């Protein structure tokens, strides 16, 4: 009997450690440190082409036969664009921005492909296509997907607003168009960003301390690194992805 | 000399030119109908016309009175006979060829399809008009004062009309014929239901014997077709013709069509366009026939039989009326036949039952009752109905108000009341049976005898009887009872036939329309 309880408590603890760790406390951050860096790729990877496989001719008309996936956008200096860089657990820090996350279904693609939504704000999902889309946002927990919202957007210019409730890395898909994909990091703290076209990123206003920074790229995968931030100073943390 | 010259070639020439007159004269024994005398003689001397009087009562000529129903029924019979003879020339009554010869009549015989349609529709029209004729006779109270027996003959003619139609239905040997034959033979067999219960079947199987007699075997086959053919073209026509003759003869002998006792000729006003009033030219008598010497004296004389004043010469009054009805009838049948084909389905196939297998439409009221109990629905209730109808003149001996529609307003009220009560109760009962079923659905193992004794058809019959008796009791008039009984009969026949024809589908289940039938 005790074993059961123990198991239960343990399970709760471990699993919640992954996705539902302690609350975030908002404090006034003055003279905090920052983390900057460049995410690079070890080698050039060709951007795969998405085949638009549909039996409905009107969808081909709208979206074409193929589309660039935009998965591997690697600059001349090997910088990787669209890498999510975030610190999962920050006990204290500045206030979260009030900024709705706008996700648009456009020409059978999600725009933007990668982005950050903040807890306490909303997802604003729009369908700009005259075809049916359903936007299914699913939280990735331990490699498994768990639906957060599965929203139907059957008509053009339909907009649905939903609060960001569960935090973590979300995969977005559309059941009607299996090639459609997007990634959203639903953050419970403001310390998350995306790399720019040269692979550079910066996370500002961190209280001094040691943080676990996660780099996530849909093609290369994810990696978590430790970094220590001192007050008022930028810490550097680079990462080079190599294709497995 | 000159006479002898003339009696040669010239006489022959005269004879040739005089052929028209001499033929007319020899044909019309009394010469051309130029005077009242010769007009009367024309009627009396003609074989076909002599069954009618030289003079006809004005009432007989009022279309609103007879509606020409009996006459139409008779004409339809004539048309059926003539078209039947034409169709018969090409028809071959064997199961190998019956169907294909009917197809040939349709496809390659000149006007064959039309003839077959005329035959079919005039035959079925007979049923309608015989029933309507019967209704007219009943509602105008015309089965009295010596006409009682003619009513019985009429009932026989009704039954013969049904049987004649039924036998004709079998002849094309298509699916309709075959499965109607099966149904009818099962109906005929239905006394078995009772003998089974009484345990008598092994001793005397009345139903089985009847069925074998009808089918000339145990299943419909070549012998059945021969038998039915013989009935249809020989036996039944001869019998029906005989009875029609007797029927007409009795009309004449029983004093012609009924006339209201207080018939008041207002012909100058409202039937001037119906008859040709005799022109009085000369003579010592006035147009009003009187008897005795009073006519010689001045002043008003009593009219002895006022009816005599109300008669007109049959020629041309009656003759033209009859001719008009005949041509109208023929035209109607032909027009109908041009546009509506007589049904002909697939060749008979004993392995593919029609579902629902239905008897001809005029028996579907019976089939509806058969679906409750075969024995009651097919034997007892039809017998009792025919018996009840036949006995009407003998149970209603009230001799007043003859020749008046519904015997006046009281009868009209009874008829309408019966119509409403009858329709509502019958439809209600059918709705009950359709929705809730009957004993067999409630107690699946119940003995069949209970269903034979207590089933919707029996209850309905009891209700009809009770209603008629109650009418007799409440109005104090047997005539009203007769009206109630007959109205109930008509209502039942109509509603049951409608339900059986339109609302019953496969397995005799209830459907609002054919579109809802589960298969085909």
């Amino acid at each position: 009997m005790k074993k059961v309880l123990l198991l239960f408590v343990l399970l709760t603890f471990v699993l919640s450690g992954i996705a539902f760790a302690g609350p975030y406390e908002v404090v006034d951050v003055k003279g905090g440190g920052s983390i900057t860096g460049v995410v690079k790729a070890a080698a050039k990877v060709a951007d795969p082409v998405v085949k638009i496989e549909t039996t409905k001719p009107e969808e081909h008309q709208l979206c074409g036969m193929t589309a660039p996936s935009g998965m591997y956008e690697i600059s001349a200096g090997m910088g990787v664009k669209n890498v999510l860089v975030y610190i999962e657990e920050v006990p204290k820090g500045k206030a979260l921005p009030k900024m709705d996350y706008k996700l648009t279904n456009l020409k059978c693609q999600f725009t933007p492909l990668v982005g950050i939504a903040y807890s306490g704000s909303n997802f604003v999902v729009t369908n700009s296509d005259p075809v049916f889309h359903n936007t299914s946002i699913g939280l990735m927990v331990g490699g498994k997907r768990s639906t957060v919202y599965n929203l139907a957007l059957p008509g053009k210019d339909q907009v649905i607003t939903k609060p960001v409730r569960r935090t973590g890395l979300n995969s977005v898909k559309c059941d009607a168009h299996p090639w459609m994909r997007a990634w959203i990091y639903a953050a419970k703290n403001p310390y998350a960003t995306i790399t720019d076209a040269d692979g550079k990123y910066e996370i500002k206003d961190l209280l001094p301390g040691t943080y676990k920074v996660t780099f996530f790229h849909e093609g290369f995968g994810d990696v978590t690194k430790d970094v220590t931030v001192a007050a008022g100073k930028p810490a550097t943390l680079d990462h080079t992805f190599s294709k497995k | 000399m000159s006479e002898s010259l003339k009696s040669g070639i010239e006489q022959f020439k005269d004879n040739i030119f005089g052929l028209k007159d001499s033929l007319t004269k020899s044909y019309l024994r009394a010469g051309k109908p130029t005077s009242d005398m010769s007009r009367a003689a024309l009627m009396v001397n003609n074989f076909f016309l002599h069954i009618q009087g030289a003079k006809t009562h004005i009432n007989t000529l009022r279309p609103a009175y007879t509606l020409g129903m009996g006459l139409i029924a008779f004409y339809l019979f004539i048309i059926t006979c003539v078209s039947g003879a034409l169709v018969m020339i090409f028809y071959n009554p064997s199961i190998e060829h019956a169907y294909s010869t009917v197809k040939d009549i349709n496809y390659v015989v000149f006007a064959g399809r039309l003839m077959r349609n005329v035959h079919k529709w005039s035959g079925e029209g007979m049923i309608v008009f015989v029933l309507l004729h019967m209704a007219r006779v009943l509602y105008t109270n015309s089965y009295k004062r010596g006409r009682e027996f003619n009513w019985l003959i009429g009932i026989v003619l009704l039954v013969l009309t049904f049987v004649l139609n039924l036998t004709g239905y079998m002849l094309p040997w298509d699916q309709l014929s075959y499965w109607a034959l099966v149904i009818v033979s099962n109906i005929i067999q239905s006394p078995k239901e009772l003998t089974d219960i009484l345990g008598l079947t092994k001793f005397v199987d009345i139903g089985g014997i009847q069925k074998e007699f009808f089918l000339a075997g145990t299943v419909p086959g070549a012998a059945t077709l021969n038998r039915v053919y013989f009935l249809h073209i020989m036996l039944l026509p001869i019998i029906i013709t005989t009875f029609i003759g007797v029927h007409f003869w009795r009309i004449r002998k029983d004093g012609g069509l009924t006339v209201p006792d207080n018939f008041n000729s207002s012909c100058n006003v409202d039937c001037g366009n119906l008859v040709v009033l005799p022109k009085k030219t000369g003579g010592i008598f006035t147009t009003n026939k009187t008897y005795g010497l009073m006519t010689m004296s001045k002043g008003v004389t009593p009219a002895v039989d006022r009816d005599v004043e109300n008669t007109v010469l049959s020629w041309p009054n009656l003759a033209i009326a009859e001719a008009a009805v005949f041509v109208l009838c023929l035209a109607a049948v032909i027009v109908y036949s041009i546009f509506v084909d007589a049904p002909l389905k697939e060749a008979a196939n004993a392995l593919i039952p029609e579902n629902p297998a239905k008897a001809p439409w005029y028996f579907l009221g019976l089939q509806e009752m058969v679906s409750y109990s075969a024995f009651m629905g097919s034997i007892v209730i039809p017998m009792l109905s025919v018996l009840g109808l036949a006995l009407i003149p003998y149970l209603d001996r009230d001799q007043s108000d003859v020749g008046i529609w519904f015997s006046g307003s009281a009868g009209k009220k009874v008829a309408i009341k019966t119509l409403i009560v009858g329709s509502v109760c019958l439809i209600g009962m059918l709705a009950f049976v359709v929705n809730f079923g009957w004993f067999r659905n409630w107690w699946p193992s119940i003995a069949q005898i209970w269903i034979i004794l207590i089933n919707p058809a029996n209850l309905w019959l009891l209700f009809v009887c009770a209603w008629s008796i109650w009418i007799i009791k409440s109005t104090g008039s047997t005539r009203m009872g007769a009206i109630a009984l007959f109205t109930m009969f008509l209502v039942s026949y109509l509603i049951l036939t409608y339900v059986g024809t339109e609302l019953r589908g496969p397995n005799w289940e209830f459907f609002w329309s054919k579109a809802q039938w589960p298969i085909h």
Partner: protein
Amino acid sequence: MQSRFYASLLLISALILLAFVSYAGLRELNPEWKTYQKEYKRLFFNNAVTPDMKKKAAEYTVGIRQIYIKDLNRVDRCDNCHVGVENPLMAKEKVPYRQHSGTYLKDHPVTKFGCTICHLGQGNATNKKEAHAEGHDTYWDYPILPLKHIQSSCTQCHNMDFLSKHGADVIIEGEKLFNEKGCKGCHKLSGNGGVLGKALDGVGSQPIHYFPMRYVEGERTQPSWLKQHFEDPRKVVPESVMKVKLTPEEADKLTTYILSIRTYDPPKIYRRINEEPIVAKDGHALYNMYCVACHEDGKLSAFDENLKGTIPAIENPAFLMNADDRFIEMVVKEGRKGTPMTSWQLSSAGLTDEEIKKIVSYVALQRGHESSKPVSVNLKTGDKDAGKEIFNVRCALCHGEKGQGGLGLNLANQIIKKADDQYLFKTIRDGRATTPMPPFGSTGLGLTDQQIVNVISYIKAF
């Protein structure tokens, strides 16, 4: 002077009568076929080149004609409209003036064969609608056969051997499909085959009303019924449990073959059927003929929604490892009562013992070399009541409380009673790999050997 009412009634009726009788007469004088014959005569004359031909064309008379074939008891009046079938000059005209295609009429002269023996339709009729008998209001049992199925008529007089040499490819492929898709697994034909479906003898010469046409789309004819039935059995017969997977082309071919299964025999002088040598079929062919419709390749264990039960994967190595040939043969011979598996022995489905042996050895080909270790099972120690308790909690969910089956197989069965104890024990203990049957033994869900024995003694008592 006459009475006005009746006189005018007489006059009007007489006029109506006259008008309609003339109308009817005119209609009778100008039937549909006359226009075709007149047009034919014109075309014939135009196409004729030699004066001889011209003369012939000019001599052609318009009039009703028919082909009467005494031996076949048929009257065909098709040539009233299809006037040019035997005239080579009409080869390029439109139907119905066109000459008959191919050289068929050389071997099958119209005067001896007529038309409807091959083409079906109503030979008696003299108008297109009723002659072609399409549409249910024409009331003819055999509507005209669509040309894509025309080969189905050849088998009346020719055998398959002859037809395969003379290019009747459609029907040959249809027969092949019939044998390979396992049709006989459910349908009997000439005495052997399963009993789940209707017997197919004479199905090709059944009248329209033999087939329930309510849900058939388009023309309600036998070929449409068959084809739509092959494409989606449930659409045509909602309660059907038939399993079939055919492409539309295959469905057409199979329809042609099924239509050729007729009972109508033309007289002997017409028939060119020689006895075909009976080729003994091997196990694989027999499996395709009788088993494949349900068991498919024998690898998939799936609950079948049509048959309302799981079709066991008989080629599953996990099954073959435990089941010996004797057991499989017994199941094939006796069938499994209460399931769609029928008894296949001679007395019911008509297979000889030899054929059954062949099928069993074909099935057994998939058996691996290793066989499971024997275990000793003593049923006498089994406690039925204890078994029942376990069964109701652990097994009844799939096998049904009375063993009637569901996701799991039916256990209330003679076969289970007769089955080897070891076979049952191993099945319960080790489960059946690749099927939902889990291992219940100590390595799996934790039943002890004794508990398994208890369960076996319970299920043997169903």
